[in-house]
């Protein structure tokens, strides 16, 4: 049982990583990772919503009628998104500004609805909590990694600290860089996992 719990938590980190392996929630992944700090902020906001909505869905699973479960999940998720939206507006206004429209759009992140439907609606409270944490941390890791790569290449700095003089490759901070960066990360991941299988 313990072993099982551990795997529920760890599989979301790398093996079933939401972004690199399952390709869920791509819009915020590409849209917010212009710098490492933005990626981290978006990842934590999503983690917050994912864990809490997983918990509530798991608690409410016995009295949500099967036919209206998707709208019910959406309302639960939207409530937590509104909470994080107001919190970020109050405490991290700069981050709130730079993430912009992608904060309300956490509602339609298919990762969150997907975990509610596929996992939290069928499993116990503790398992759903672990699943939410694992998946959310994996998502945060992916966003921070892509954000860091784009920031290093694009503006020659990391988490806002410049480490080299001169101009970076601006294209990595702009829209095409998001697609290119993510494409190459997935290619490397594919390559590594294939080697492991052999």
């Amino acid at each position, binding site marked *: 049982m313990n072993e099982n719990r551990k795997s529920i938590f760890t599989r979301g980190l790398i093996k079933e990583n939401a972004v690199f392996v399952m*390709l869920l929630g791509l819009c915020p992944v590409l849209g917010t990772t212009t710098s490492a700090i933005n990626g981290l902020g978006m990842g934590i906001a999503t983690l917050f919503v994912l864990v809490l909505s997983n918990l509530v869905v798991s608690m409410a699973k016995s009295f949500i009628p099967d036919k209206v479960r998707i*709208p019910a999940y959406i309302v639960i998720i939207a409530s937590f998104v*509104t909470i994080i939206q*107001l919190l970020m507006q109050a405490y991290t206004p700069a981050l709130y500004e730079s993430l912009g429209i992608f904060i309300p*759009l956490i509602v*339609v992140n298919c990762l969150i609805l997907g975990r509610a439907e596929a996992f939290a609606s069928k499993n116990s409270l503790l398992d759903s909590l672990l699943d939410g944490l694992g998946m959310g941390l994996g998502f945060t890791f992916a966003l921070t990694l892509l954000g860091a790569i784009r920031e290093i290449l694009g503006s020659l700095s990391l988490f806002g600290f410049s480490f080299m003089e001169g101009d970076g490759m601006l294209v990595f901070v702009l829209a*095409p860089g998001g697609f290119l960066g993510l494409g190459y990360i997935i290619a*490397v991941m594919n*390559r590594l996992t294939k080697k492991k299988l052999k």
Partner: protein
Amino acid sequence: MDYVLIIISAIFVNNIVLAKFLGVCPFMGVSTRLSTAVGMTGAVTFVMVIATVFTYLIQNYVLVPYGIEFMQTITFILVIAFLVQLVEIVLKKVSPPLYQALGIYLPLITTNCAVLGVAILAVGNRDFGLMESVVFAAANAIGFGLALATFAGLREHMELADIPSGMKGIPIAFVTAGLLALAFMGFSGIA
């Protein structure tokens, strides 16, 4: 506000997929064949325009007068989910051939962030009246269709290319999308 400016800006300069990163999931998911791309675009256009009209009216006649703008996210997503269901039912009764063509794409649209994104962007822009919002939504839907169709065309040819095994499938699709986005950046002086 000049309508032509809104249209050109939404289709080319600030393309919803390639510059604003909204609707990337369907962009990657249904772009393997040109015919599915066209079907998806039809469904998105339909829902996006209707959803923008409804959310615009709700924002300006319900949320703002009562001072409950913080309910925007919850209200909008429910309106969109409701509309998608409604469109599906109405289309089934009124126009079975159209339903046949768009049917399978409709349920996917609730979680298409392009629809919610355009609704939020349209009400967030203070220069937009109802007419401007509708034009904005339609232009964005066309922009989505243009990106999707172009990308689907590229991917159909890409299948025959001989590339390293690690790059096959999704990675090369992302790199292609990146190059397409780079091409669209060329429009960025126009408007």
